[in-house]
């Protein structure tokens, strides 16, 4: 579903954000992406979502290159940023209608989707309120609904659980599992290693822009805890 080959992204000024990164996410997989602050997680995610341009390597989503055909690639993905800056002066409903319009979701489908997802995340009653009045968690929930609205094939999430209350985090985890059980895939970054350990089928660890470990959960951590392995691997990489 997602294939990253030899991705290299250098920022103006020469700082290497991602260095020769290669990984693959298959259909039906939940793929966790972990690393220290500034390791290159968000840079990689933004490159996949088409927000960052990169000078070397390829990123293909379901066989479509994000560089060569960004519109086709973006049509089958959804992206949720770490800090969902949304249009404050729109209502939640107006925002969701905008996203549905862009993905050409029919009135019937959008109604069913929005009502179901918003009810699960308990913001149905707030959808007519202005986004400016939302808390960080509510904005995150709205961005999540917007991401699921068009049934993407690949969901890219940057720290999706930040700001969510425990119940909403539980609901989102269930939504993620259900989403992947239908053949779609999720690639997400997180600092919460317990979540990654319980939720992910595969995991990749990045440090200073380089991939230092990747594979199934068992391959990466064996019998130890993910936290121990993460600390050990990242120390070794020094």
């Amino acid at each position, binding site marked *: 579903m997602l294939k990253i080959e030899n991705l290299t992204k250098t920022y103006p000024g020469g700082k290497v954000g991602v260095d020769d990164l290669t990984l693959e996410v298959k259909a039906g997989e939940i793929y966790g992406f972990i690393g220290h602050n500034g390791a290159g997680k968000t840079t990689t995610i*933004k490159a996949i*979502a*088409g*927000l*960052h*341009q990169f000078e070397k390597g390829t990123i293909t989503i379901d066989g479509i290159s994000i560089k060569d055909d*960004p*519109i*086709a*690639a*973006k*049509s089958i*993905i959804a*992206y949720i*940023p770490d*800090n969902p*800056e*949304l*249009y*404050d*002066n*729109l*209502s939640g*409903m*107006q925002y969701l*209608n*905008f*996203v*549905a*319009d*862009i*993905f*050409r*979701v*029919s*009135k019937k489908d*959008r*109604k069913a989707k*929005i009502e179901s997802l918003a009810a699960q995340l308990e913001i149905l*009653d*707030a*959808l*007519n*309120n202005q986004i400016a009045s939302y808390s960080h968690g509510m904005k995150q929930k709205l961005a999540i609904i917007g991401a699921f609205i068009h049934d993407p094939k690949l969901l890219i999430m940057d720290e999706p659980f930040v700001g969510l209350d425990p119940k909403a985090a539980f609901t989102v985890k269930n939504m993620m599992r259900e989403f992947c059980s239908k053949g779609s895939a999720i690639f997400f970054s997180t600092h919460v290693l317990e979540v990654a350990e319980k939720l992910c089928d595969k995991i990749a660890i990045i440090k200073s822009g380089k991939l230092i470990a990747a594979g199934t959960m068992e391959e990466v951590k064996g019998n130890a805890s993910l936290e121990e392995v993460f600390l050990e691997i990242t120390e070794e990489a020094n």
Partner: protein
Amino acid sequence: MRTLLILLRTEFISLVNSLNRKGKTPFIIAAIGLAILGLFMIGMFAIIGGSTTYLLVEKDLAEYAIFISLSLSMIIALMFGVINSTRDARSSDTGMLLAMPIPKASIVISKLLGMYLLDVLCAMVMLVPSFLIVCTVGGASSALFFRGIAIGFLIPALPLFISLLISAMISFLRRATKFGQVATIILTMGTLLLYMVVVPNISSYAEELNITTAESITKMKQILPFYWITEAIYSGDLVCVLLTLLITVIPLILAVYIHTRGLNGTDFHVDNSKKARNYKGSSFKKAVLSMELRRYFSSTNYIMNTLFGTILLIAAVAYIAYKGVGDISFLESIEVDGETVDLLSKFNGLTWAAIWAAMINFFASVTYTTPSSVSIEGKRIWLNKSLPIPTKIILFSKLMVSVLIFQPVSIIACIVLSIVSNAGIVPCLLLIVLTSLFHLLCSFVGLIFGLIFARLDWTNEAEVIKKGMAIILTMVINMILAILSGIGLIIAVIITRDAVTYGVFAGEIVLIAGLCAGAYAIITHYGVRKYETLNG
């Protein structure tokens, strides 16, 4: 008192530091810039106040002169107050201050003092020259001068109170209804128009005024509070002094009280949960354009800085339609080779169309949204960039917003002006085509500079709406374009030969269309690439 002084000191330090945000501009340069601007404003107000007073004192209307200066200072203070009140009343540090052991009144006073001092400065700049002229030229006693200065410190309390009431009203409308934004815009534009109509024309009003002292008193009594203040200054009448104290000090106390109540965080919560949800969709391109329009109309700052040309055009067309072209005498006669030529008699519909084109192009050159349309996205740019929207459509939706805020009005203006001046169909069409293309070019110029100088790391949208290289360069280039286009059109007007006028119209249309085509090519190639490299 101690906490109030600490707050005032902090406000002052914050003001000084704001001159050197990010440390990029040397403090001294920022301070000199601010001082020059201040001196210009002071000089302008002093000249208006002084000259008006002089004209009225010469007509033996000294008291009325004070009344007029007083009214002017109120209008200016009200204008500043209304502009200030369109911002959110609760500044970002209010929560932090409320959590500290500081009396709420101290917080309010420290916040209001800046506004009050600005109003005092405006009032004094207008009133002091007026008092001086009344005392020296008008022969009034020096006691009037000192009474005037003392009362001058009280006068700003009245507009301050009114602007705080407006602020509270706007705050309520914004939270409780969806018309808050519209109300804010109408109110601000109305106040600015009032200022623009009254202040620059006050001297000619004074010059043409022909009334007796008794008639002037009747006029003053139509606005009783202003009459009381004028009497208090002019004659020192005790009742009027007391009434002045009553109408200035009491509102000031009320203003502090209203603001203190506002700090309690009274919120007008609106329950939208029962409201039906609208799932109606729209087409892809329409969705992108509606989003751009919503973004535009959601910002008072954005609208106020971009819609003024449209408002002025409406005012100008309304004035011309009301007066008729026969009463427009600015081109009635000019001197050619020592002989006075009556140009107006030679004018036909086509000549008028050329004049209207120059006028509308001038308004077009100051009315566009594009220079800040890219930067305004700020950290929300991820949304447009992560959705499957072709960059070209995003950029052209920005261009369309700029077109929509001016061109429908401009086309109606062309038709109305053509009818008023009996221009006929062909000159009217030429007028529409030329002005539309010119405004399109201005918007293109703005978009190109907006892309070149895009800045997404702002914390306050005013940073990209009011300031920045994109805004300055667009303004300069578009002004130059308007002047060049105007020169061609005015030459055609002076020559008053139809063939020349048609030639100028055709030449300008072809030239501007060519420039638009060039700008289109820049946007679709360089612009698209540049937008795709932007990161919020």
